[in-house]
């Protein structure tokens, strides 16, 4: 069988699959938006997409470039002001899944999207900042993270904790008063990591087809834990790939 998919497509398809069974998803822009829109076309047609710009139940025909593209409002069940979105809908505890990207994660799935150190005496590399992430990760029932696997992204220590995943281990979320369960999976272009139920440390649970444990070790900035018997994710189906490519094509044409 020839593998006619890219590593990014493996990541996107598996990210979409992680939304099976969810009712509502708070969608970050970029990879999370791709995954959530793919899920609506494959594993979860009834999924309600919620964008922080105020659109509840958006049904975009093409992938939006920004979280405020007009189509999100035009196709939504309801459009609400941004303060209401954060206070009544997110903080009110009505969203099942928060789907976030990340510049850097650590072994406890904490996230940095603020700034990266270049070392003593040199200015930080500036990242965009928090956006909605700290409260999305706090308030949603559970959190999915999606990012490409690299030592730049999977770091032993974050220069800045923008968004708390599992803090320094089990019990930290409860101690901080974070209501949701926090990150339940980190989906990358190499595989899927999940927090160990006992230690909350990210553990390689599944590899994408063709990926090895050594590939994951090489791309992770700490001595990553590996499940005793990591599984392999199912290869993308033809239907998944077709849906993903159709979803992306109008936007690429518009470029």
């Amino acid at each position, binding site marked *: 069988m020839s593998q006619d998919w890219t590593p990014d497509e493996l990541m996107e398809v598996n990210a979409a699959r992680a939304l099976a069974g969810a009712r509502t998803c708070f969608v970050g822009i970029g990879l999370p938006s791709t995954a959530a829109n793919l899920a609506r076309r494959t594993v979860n047609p009834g999924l309600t997409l919620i964008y922080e710009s105020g659109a509840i139940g958006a049904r975009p025909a093409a992938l939006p470039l*920004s979280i405020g593209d007009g189509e999100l409002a035009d196709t939504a069940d309801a459009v609400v002001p941004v303060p209401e979105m*954060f206070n009544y809908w997110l*903080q009110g505890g009505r969203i099942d899944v928060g789907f976030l990207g990340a510049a850097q994660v650590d072994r406890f799935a904490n996230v940095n999207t*603020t700034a990266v150190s270049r070392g003593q005496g040199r*200015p930080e590399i500036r990242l965009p*900042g928090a956006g909605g992430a700290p*409260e999305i990760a*706090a308030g949603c029932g559970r959190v999915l993270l999606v990012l490409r696997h690299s030592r730049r992204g999977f770091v032993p220590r974050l220069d800045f904790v923008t968004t708390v995943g599992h803090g320094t281990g089990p019990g930290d979320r409860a101690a901080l008063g*974070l209501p949701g369960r926090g990150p339940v999976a980190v989906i990358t272009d190499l595989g899927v990591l999940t927090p160990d139920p006992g230690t909350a440390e990210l553990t390689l649970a599944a590899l994408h087809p063709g990926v090895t444990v050594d590939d994951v070790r090489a791309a992770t900035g700490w001595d990553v834990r590996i499940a005793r018997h990591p599984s392999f994710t199912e290869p993308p189906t033809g239907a998944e790939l077709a849906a993903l490519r159709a979803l992306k094509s109008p936007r690429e044409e518009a470029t």
Partner: protein
Amino acid sequence: MADIRSLHDAVADLIHDGDTVAMEGFTHLIPFAAAHELIRQGTTDLTLVRMTPDVVYDQLIGAGLAARLVFSWGGNPGVGSLHRFRDAVENGWPRPLELDEHSHAGMANRYVAGASGLPFAVLRGYLGSDIPRRTDTVATVVCPFTGAELAAVAALNPDVTVIHAQRADPAGNVQLWGLTGVQKEAVLAARRVLVTVEEVVPALDPRPGALTLPTWTVDAVAVVPGGAHPSYAAGYSTRDNAFYRAWDAISRDREAFTAWLDSQVRRREGATPR
């Protein structure tokens, strides 16, 4: 009551050096034309407030007008970095930029407190994050009923808020629809308010999803069709995503940016340098 004025005169009268200015619009209805008028007038030493600085503040920062930025997410949505913002923060070019950085929930609630005449707002936010270490506008409060500890954020009350809206009537009542973001709060929190609109119509007939800002909440309305470009005005235009993508190359290089600023903003017709 809002006067209907030229953009030049409204900006000159309402926005002054050193002011705290919020130009809001969550991707939609971003008041780019008003920002360009600020660049032409050279109004400087501004504290710029915006949840998502976006390309509009990248331009103001690159033009050297901003001393300080109050914000929660500084990227080019779906494209990448804001290079002028990064150059100012990382290299101090063309001048250093002080930051007061928050989360979206915190910024939204800071506007809510400002609009509500309260000195602060309460939220479940910033828990465990390093953000509070770099700002003095986040603190904690204890619930007097449950003993729970919660985040408090200081109210935002800009000297001036600028928004773009679809339309106004001749009396200066303003109507906007689509994604209306945090505009109502930013307007009601501000001491002075400038609204650019696509058009003035005889009467504001009701529209689904529309909100109305009575004329007595607005100081000036300026008619600027397309005044949100490359952002958009639902019902009038669509987001110019190609421009947002093109901005990456324009803004990455100081010279390319300066050339763009000169040719596309400073030397545009109607520009009246002071």
